[in-house]
């Protein structure tokens, strides 16, 4: 089961994009693949303060707020620039990956916002543990709902938390007119049931 299909239809645009990207990170030679550079030319994901006119399409309002905070304090960031494969199938294709929300190049730090339900937080925690097993040198800060709340309290914007957190903070996916097919949501369906397989030692 891929990340996208496991997350279900309400998982939002980002999961689908991530799933589509990880499929490009095939592993035909059996070796641990390099981190995948995201290539989404229609969505400029690089931001250097002052932020450019074009902003990336954030999957969640809390991410957009975090981008504004980083801009304010002149911390350079990139939105989902890298994808880290974490689960491969027997054929070596990536079936699950991790794409941290922000990369702060000057701090060499990844930032992952987790402002959703507790069930999803546990899932993300598990995934992060797996990521750190595979990529021990990675510096990732998981930003929980309570962290975001504390940040908003510090900045006197606590009133915004309700609308920026949880499911209500999610960006509504673009409506697709007509029948929804895999191609209309950017997915490529691969034949056969996927299997979970531990990757070989890097």
């Amino acid at each position, binding site marked *: 089961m891929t990340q996208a299909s496991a997350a279900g239809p309400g998982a939002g645009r980002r999961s689908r994009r991530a799933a589509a990207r990880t499929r490009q990170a095939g592993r035909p030679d059996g070796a641990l693949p390099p981190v995948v550079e995201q290539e989404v030319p229609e969505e400029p994901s690089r931001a250097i303060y002052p*932020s450019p006119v074009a902003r990336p399409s954030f999957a969640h309002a809390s991410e957009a*707020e975090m981008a*504004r905070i980083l801009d*304010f*304090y002149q911390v350079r960031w990139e939105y989902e620039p890298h994808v880290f494969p974490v689960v491969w199938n027997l054929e070596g294709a990536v079936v699950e990956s991790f794409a941290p929300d922000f990369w702060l190049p000057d701090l060499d730090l990844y*930032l992952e916002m987790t402002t959703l339900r507790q069930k999803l937080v546990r899932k993300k925690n598990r995934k992060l543990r797996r990521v750190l097993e595979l990529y021990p040198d990675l510096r990732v800060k998981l930003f929980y709902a309570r962290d975001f709340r504390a*940040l908003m309290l510090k900045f006197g914007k*606590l009133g915004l*938390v309700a609308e*920026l957190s949880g499911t209500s903070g999610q960006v509504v996916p673009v409506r697709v007119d007509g029948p929804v097919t895999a191609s209309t949501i950017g997915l490529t369906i691969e034949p056969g049931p996927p299997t979970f397989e531990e990757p070989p030692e890097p």
Partner: protein
Amino acid sequence: MITKPIDLRADIGEVLLDEVAIQAKILELGAQISADHTDRPLTLVSVLKGSLPFMADLMRAISVPLRIDLMEVSSYGGTGTESSGLVRILKDLSASIEGEDVLIVEDIIDTGLTLNYLLRYLRGKNPRSLEICTLLDKPARRLVDIPVNYIGFTIPDQFVVGYGLDYGEYYRNLRFVGVLRPEVYTDQA
């Protein structure tokens, strides 16, 4: 909009650091800073407004010659979800620090975002050395790793006010550091 508190003390759920503990720690910090800076004069740079009481007490606990200066930077907090622009220097140093040994005096370090900006700004003024002293350190909230030379207290991940620290500009005049009752800010959210 934060409403004016009626009874400052009643809004505090727990006193985290009382006046005696704070003053004892400041004497300790002052002695350590004095011992570390015997050969050259020191410039203390206080970051307004929160560090004002700490600066006032710390400078008197340091026995070596020193100069003081004040800075203030804007804080994030735009209205709604609109952009708040960029951090700005609201009050700059009044004298050059080029070639000086500088000690930044902070009330609290949590995310490290403000201090990270300030460090970059002050490095551009070519001081001989740049050190940091903070009364409170909240490492659980850290986004930017910053080497801190002098730390008074490492505190848990709670929202604290008093001894310079504010909520909506109030509570700074408390003589202790306390945890604000959550209902104070949740009622106003």
